[in-house]
């Protein structure tokens, strides 16, 4: 009688590498040097891809583009833990980093941002769904796939991606709650880059962290320094192990920072100060890891130069592939709407075909 304790919960944050590339030795994950270099390479590849994309956009060779600059560690540290045979990626629109790391061809990602629907999906057998634009909605798909993995007793985990802003949508809540109830093999992976376009996190929610929301659903959760690839690695490893062992879903909040505009259609100087950008520039995830790898003698400057060379080449050849793609076929507008084309799509397709034939003449 009287007041009884009903619930007590605690949420932790993991940090390993500080902004100057010094590691907390006792927290260092048990991880091979190859894996460390792999993560670093992933990040470099992402950065190279991203810089080229911004370039292509300025030249009008692709359309509106959403940059992931600053979020490379949050994606690379997870990517190395995933298994492209079993695991599912359920991306939002800023996950090109993890997608390319798992093997989605870069030229298709460029194609997506060019406004070419062939960029929606790759035929490489990678379990990666098309990017989802309605914020937060895809998390339920990840929960559903995780429910299926659980039902089928498959080893795969479905990773649902979303941003900090997305956690305000009802679908985030429903995805977490269904995941908890059905013990879905799902990782809800929130890249909290602290901004939803111009809206800072403190206007997004009054809660001190997003990770603590796990308690609302009995979904295990933690926060991690998302600009620290070693911490992201470790958090992802733990979360995936938890899920693969049948302990139910997990949620990770990777706190990071979007270094540039929301997309190329945005101008972040309207709502963020240069000081803030400079502050985060110092916390760049790539520089930090580079310093660590070099200081620890895991990598030499020559190795790094080789990586630079590789990732640049890969991007260049992706651009070539992009631009070698034959023009998309307008007739495709009518395809794959239904298993069988209804009469009106047949009529509309014929109309467009006639128009195009007339233009040709």
């Amino acid at each position: 009688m009287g007041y009884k304790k009903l619930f007590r919960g605690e949420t932790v944050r993991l940090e390993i590498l500080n902004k100057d590339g010094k590691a907390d030795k006792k927290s260092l994950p048990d991880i091979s040097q190859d894996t460390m270099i792999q993560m670093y390479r992933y990040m470099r590849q992402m950065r190279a891809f991203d810089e080229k994309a911004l370039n292509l956009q300025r030249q009008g060779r692709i359309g509106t583009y959403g940059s992931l600059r600053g979020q490379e560690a949050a994606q690379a540290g997870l990517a190395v833990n995933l298994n492209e045979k079993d695991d599912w990626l359920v991306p939002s629109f800023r996950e090109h980093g993890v997608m390319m790391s798992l093997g989605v061809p870069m030229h298709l990602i460029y194609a997506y941002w060019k406004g070419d629907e062939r960029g929606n999906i790759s035929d490489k057998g990678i379990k990666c769904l098309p990017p989802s634009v309605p914020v937060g909605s895809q998390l339920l798909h990840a929960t559903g796939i995780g429910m299926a993995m659980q039902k089928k007793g498959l080893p795969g985990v479905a990773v649902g991606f979303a941003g900090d802003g997305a956690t305000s949508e009802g679908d985030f809540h429903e995805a977490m709650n269904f995941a908890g109830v059905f013990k879905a093999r799902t990782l809800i992976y929130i890249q909290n880059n602290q901004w939803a376009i111009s809206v800072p996190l403190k206007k997004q929610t009054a809660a001190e962290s997003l990770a603590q929301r796990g308690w609302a659903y009995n979904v295990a959760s933690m926060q991690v320094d998302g600009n620290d690839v070693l911490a992201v690695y470790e958090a992802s490893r733990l979360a995936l192990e938890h899920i693969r062992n049948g302990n139910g879903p997990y949620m990770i909040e990777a706190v990071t920072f979007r270094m540039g505009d929301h997309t190329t259609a945005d101008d972040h100087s309207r709502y963020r100060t240069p000081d803030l950008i400079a502050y985060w520039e110092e916390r760049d995830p790539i520089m930090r890891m580079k310093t660590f790898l070099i200081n620890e003698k895991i990598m030499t400057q020559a190795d790094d130069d080789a990586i630079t060379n590789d990732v640049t080449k890969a991007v260049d050849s992706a651009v070539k592939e992009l631009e070698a793609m034959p023009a998309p076929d307008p007739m495709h507008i009518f395809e794959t709407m239904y298993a069988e084309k209804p009469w009106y799509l047949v009529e509309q397709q014929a109309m467009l075909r006639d128009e195009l034939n007339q233009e040709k003449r």
Partner: protein
Amino acid sequence: MTAASKTQKMTLVQAVTQALKQEMERDESILVLGEDVGKDGGVFRATDGLIDAFGEERVMDTPLAESGIIGVSVGLAVAGYRPVPEIQFMGFIYPAVNQIFAHVARYRHRSRGQYPMPMVIRMPYGGGIHAPEHHSESYESMLANTPGLTVVIPSTPYDAKGLLISALRSDDPVIFMEPKRIYRSFREDVPEEPYTVPLSKAAVRREGNDVTIISYGSMMRPALEAADFLARDNISAEVIDVRTIAPVDVETIVTSVEKTGRAVIVHEAPTRSGFGAELSALINERALLHLLAPVQRVTGFDTVFPFAMMEAHYLPNRQRVVAAVQTALEF
């Protein structure tokens, strides 16, 4: 269906249950999920007995969240299942329309055919059962405006079973709207064996020459009653049951109107931008020169669906259909 197959007298809702049961036996990938679909067997008992037959892994009571129900169904479909989510009443489809319109309807196209969306979203719709607010609505027009969906509305037990089996075997997402007003209002012979009724194919329920009455779902009743009534005055009405409103079977409709020269459309939803508008526009486009009178729409009013005490005034009935036919004849 072979001529020899046995039949059973059953109601529309029983036909729905039987179709689900038989297809779940045949196809292990079918899952039923929704609010109260398990132990309770659904608030209308449409899923009665399924949990006993197939267990909690295949018949899942879910949290009370329509977006969640449809959203996880997308994931289940991607991963190889054939989910059959139930929306408890069509009045509660709104929280789910983002998942239905932005994802379910688009997934085949977005994934260039890689992830079709085999899914049957079942829901009781319509008025006439003296239910509280939001329990009587018909929102089919917005579904018909959304490319990628197949929208089926049966009006008889026989069709309910055959159309639902077709839906469950289709690789496209089907919205299956069940006219709850006639869930139990009559029985008819339904073959015991599984059989299909084709999607996207209207049925001519009654042949006639003077006017074509076009309807679907629970409004088929007043439509047929009106035809009976008119027959006494030697007015011969052809009655068409659209059955699938998207993709709609324009041919059956236009062929009939070409013959009769007059069309009366009957549905419960409001007039403005209701599905009757599409039918009228199609008839105008394809049979204008045959039209002897304007296409008439007999529909719910352009108001909120009223509470129980007033719903009889709102819902189209035989009298209103007869009046519309007379207007068309006297034009």
